[in-house]
């Protein structure tokens, strides 16, 4: 007999209720139950970072959490990064402009990790970005363009904040 639970999870601002098996991983819940396939599954054991999502504002590997543990929590996935009008976020645009992706497999995790980092550290050095990106593997870009995108986005976000101030 399988062990199931009723859970309520807010994903990208929208509340979802579901009955899930206890052993269902959060990443599989997002992809299979909610059809949010933007979050990728690479290694399924916490090494690659492709599955990175935000849980209550902090990045986490969704292959290392059970969906039942997300009960009552607020999750942000790559689908939640775009602006309300559907436009790309500053960070997403910077990835496009700096060729920060090739195959795109690592990109959802890269974007979540960098979104958290740029929120907490608006003026990062290249070294800061390289360190925080150690948790996300990319097999295509050699990271150079991803770091460039991160620095570019940080600058544009600071400019936007200065304008609004």
């Amino acid at each position: 007999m399988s062990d199931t639970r009723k859970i309520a999870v807010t994903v990208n601002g929208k509340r979802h209720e579901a009955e899930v098996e206890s052993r269902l991983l959060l990443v599989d819940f997002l992809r299979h139950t909610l059809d949010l396939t933007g979050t990728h599954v690479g290694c399924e054991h916490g090494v690659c970072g492709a599955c990175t999502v935000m849980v209550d504002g902090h990045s986490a590997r969704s292959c290392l959490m059970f969906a039942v543990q997300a009960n009552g929590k607020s999750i942000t996935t790559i689908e939640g990064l775009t602006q309300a009008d559907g436009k790309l976020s500053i960070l997403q645009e910077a990835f496009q402009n700096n060729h920060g992706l090739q195959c795109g497999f690592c990109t959802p995790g890269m974007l979540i990790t960098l979104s958290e980092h740029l929120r907490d550290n608006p003026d990062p050095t290249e070294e800061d970005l390289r360190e925080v990106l150690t948790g996300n593997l990319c097999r295509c870009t050699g990271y150079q363009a991803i770091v460039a995108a991160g620095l570019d986005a940080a600058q544009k976000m600071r400019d936007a904040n200065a304008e609004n101030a």
Partner: protein
Amino acid sequence: MKPAPFAYHDPTTIGDAVALLAQHESARPLAGGQSLVPMMNFRYATPDHLVDLNGIEALRGVEVGERLTFGAMTRQRDVEFSSEVAQACPILVEALRHVGHRQTRNRGTIGGSLCHLDPAAETPAMMMLHDAVLTAQSVSGARDLPMNEFALGFMTSALEPGELLTQISFEAWAPEHGWGFEEYARRHGDFAIASAGVLLTLDAKGAISRFAMVIGGLAPAPMRLTDFEAQAISATPDEDFIKAASDAASQVEAMDDAHVSAAYRQHLASVLSARALRRALVCARERSLHHV
């Protein structure tokens, strides 16, 4: 689905958690999940009952005074970003920055890392360095264990079945203490091949008045250099002293594996311990200048 089926429990009190552990023979506590869940995904670990500790408020929190006290479920990030810990025990913050990655430190816990007890992990090495006392609780009560008795061997703690690690605490060193931590890993965030941590204080003449040194990654559990530490008291910390420390570090019996030979681990231990010690000395001298 990757993990084998299990019954999920999410107690909100320590009492309920230890009752569940007592009740079910094949139950495992789930802390941050950064080591246990990969093992479950591979089905290396197939507990019938999973006792999720993430909802137990009483297991969280950091207190900084004469002693530093951590609830076992305190997340690594909470210690990493605590300005009080940074003030009282900067070496712990520096060592934690080497633990995994941002995303894993956001979930991973102090107690989880101690119970997993990887020989190269930074948290066990830091607790060994500080002579931490660990509190284990079960339905029959609580007991305190010093870290060197808690770490029994290769990934093996002294916790008995049904016992839960609830709290870790250690005495803060004097504010003018010097510290140094060094490790070498192939990639940032990987488990270190070897690491070295040093704490020391100097007397008014600049001789060593208190000294502790730990080597991680070589032996099955982090090792204090107790013999050398005893000799270090009152020593003048000159080049010969640094050489003696690094020789002592290189004599820790080291493990071999498919990637790294024991001799290489010992070589790293000797280089890293000299670096850590130099840093600790510079730090202590600077700090004692400020205290004059």
